[in-house]
């Protein structure tokens, strides 16, 4: 089975054909985004006169610069917060066997099941009463809390499999618990931290429902909300819409292809359990 035979070659061709089918929509996306609006030929025919006009117009009219900045801010801030608080919380939850610790862990498991649609509307009311609607900081707060159960769950599972010897040694040497966590435990958590970082960043960056709720009617937008507004504004000008979609996809794909190994391993590694 380790040789490259003609059957392997056939399989190779089949798999490449599958990959082409998967890539086809992206080809159409780019093709429509760079062809002039006057070109009304079939969308699958490669354009003969590529132009950047749609891209510049979409950038100028879509408010995408501000939306990208907001998305970067919300994603960075909320992911950093959730990684910090969840890893810290996982430490006692993974180590202690007391009743409070098991109770908290059960709440975390409950949080994995609760769909956010249940909390979304009452929380909307609370955010409104606090005057936080239309603020990106409301989103940071929201994601920091929303992602706690999943992130803590990942950390607890990983930490339970770690030996306790290093922590005990550090404690014997007179470290305080917080120092033990900061200098001994947290560095050992690096693999699961990468996984949690990747999964949380993608979930937060891509989320649409929450910013649609909490930012609607304000001039603050994240990328998905800006795109929805853009599509609403330029209903059938698909060249322009596709240009906006291309602009929003380029940063994600650039990061993905640059870090593909850690990202894919992050997805697979943490979930392998």
């Amino acid at each position, binding site marked *: *089975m380790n*040789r490259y035979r003609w059957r*392997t070659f056939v*399989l*190779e061709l089949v798999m490449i054909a599958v990959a082409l089918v998967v890539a*086809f*929509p992206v080809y159409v996306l780019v093709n429509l985004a760079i062809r002039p609006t006057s070109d009304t030929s*079939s*969308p*699958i025919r490669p354009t003969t006169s590529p132009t950047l006009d749609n891209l510049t117009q979409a950038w100028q009219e879509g408010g995408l610069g501000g939306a990208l900045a907001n998305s970067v801010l919300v994603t960075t801030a909320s992911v950093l*917060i959730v990684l910090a*608080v*969840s890893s*810290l919380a996982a430490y*006692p939850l993974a*180590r202690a066997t*007391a009743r409070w*610790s098991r109770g908290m862990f059960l*709440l975390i498991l409950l*949080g994995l*099941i*609760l*769909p956010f*649609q*249940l*909390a*979304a*509307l009452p*929380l909307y009311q609370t955010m409104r009463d606090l005057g936080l609607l239309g603020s990106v900081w409301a989103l940071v*707060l929201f994601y920091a*809390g*929303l992602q*706690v159960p999943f992130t*803590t769950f990942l950390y607890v599972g990983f930490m339970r499999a770690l030996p306790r010897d290093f*922590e*005990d040694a550090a*404690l*014997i040497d007179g470290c305080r*618990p917080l120092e*033990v966590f900061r200098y001994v435990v947290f560095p050992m958590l690096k693999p699961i931290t990468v996984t949690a970082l990747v999964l949380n960043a993608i979930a937060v960056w*891509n989320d649409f*429902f929450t910013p649609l709720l909490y930012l609607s009617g304000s001039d603050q937008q994240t*990328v*998905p909300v800006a*795109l*929805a507004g853009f*599509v609403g504004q330029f209903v059938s000008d*698909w060249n322009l819409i596709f240009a906006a*979609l291309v602009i*929003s*996809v380029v940063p*994600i*794909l650039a990061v*993905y292809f640059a870090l593909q190994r850690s*990202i*894919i391993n992050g*997805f*697979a590694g943490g*979930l*392998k359990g």
Partner: protein
Amino acid sequence: MTTIPKRHNRERRLGSGSIPPWWFAAPAMLLFAFVVLIPSARGIYYAFTDWDGLSPDFSWVGFGNFTDMVGDPNARQAVWHTLVLAVAITIIQNGFGLLLALGVNTMIKSRNVLRVLLFAPAVITPIVTAYLWRNLLGPDGAVNSLLGAVGLESWRQDWLGDPQLALWAIVGVIVWQFAGYSMVIFLAGLQSVPREIYEAAAIDGTGPVRRFWWVVRPLLAPAFTINLMLSIIGGIKLFDQVYALTGGGPGHATDTISTLIYKDAFTLGEFGYSIALAVVLTIIVAVASTSQYFVLSRNERAAS
């Protein structure tokens, strides 16, 4: 002389002192309570009221919202659509994901490039892929152009405008985006199958299909658990793609519980009813995930 205080220190530390203090969990639990637990509890309460989301006074209506739901054809349809979507996505996405994983986990030269390419759609913002596909699946879109180009004129459809097809078009878009995600998790499972076991079976003359069924499949049990859980829960909660592809239309042909929650709350102002729908959604997710968890972990134990 120095050993005595050290030993004393050690005993004290390794007693209760080696367990990290409970307040380490406090910041996370406070955020979690503020964003998820307290609003969810209030949500369950509001589900039994006629609150409109704005006025300070509302009244208790008991199970009124839930009995209304039984008589509401839109709600009944939305529950049905949600279940169809979740089941269809789970089966088709994981079927493709498994085939892709088996194909990539071979000696083919393009395996590393293919893995990266096939997973790529999974990181793209769902709302972006949904708008992309809304155009591709339109009457003059690329899918129909492609069908025309290969001589399948009669297969051309208004994919999202036909109530019979729209739900399946949504399934197709989700499968396109997330089959690579399932593939990556199956691949991680496949790569944990020891080469020797596989080769031993091959030497024994076991064919590829039997080899898969008797050797590989049992070892993939954890990957199955994770993939099935992720896709069924994701399918039940689906909102973004439906909102951007069809908005629940044509008519109510693709409304799911999530899109109905949004419409009832923000266009009709029926918060109480909308949250009652969210409670139903919660119950479906809870039943699906716990029953699946028990069935699959029993299979995992049986397989190991």
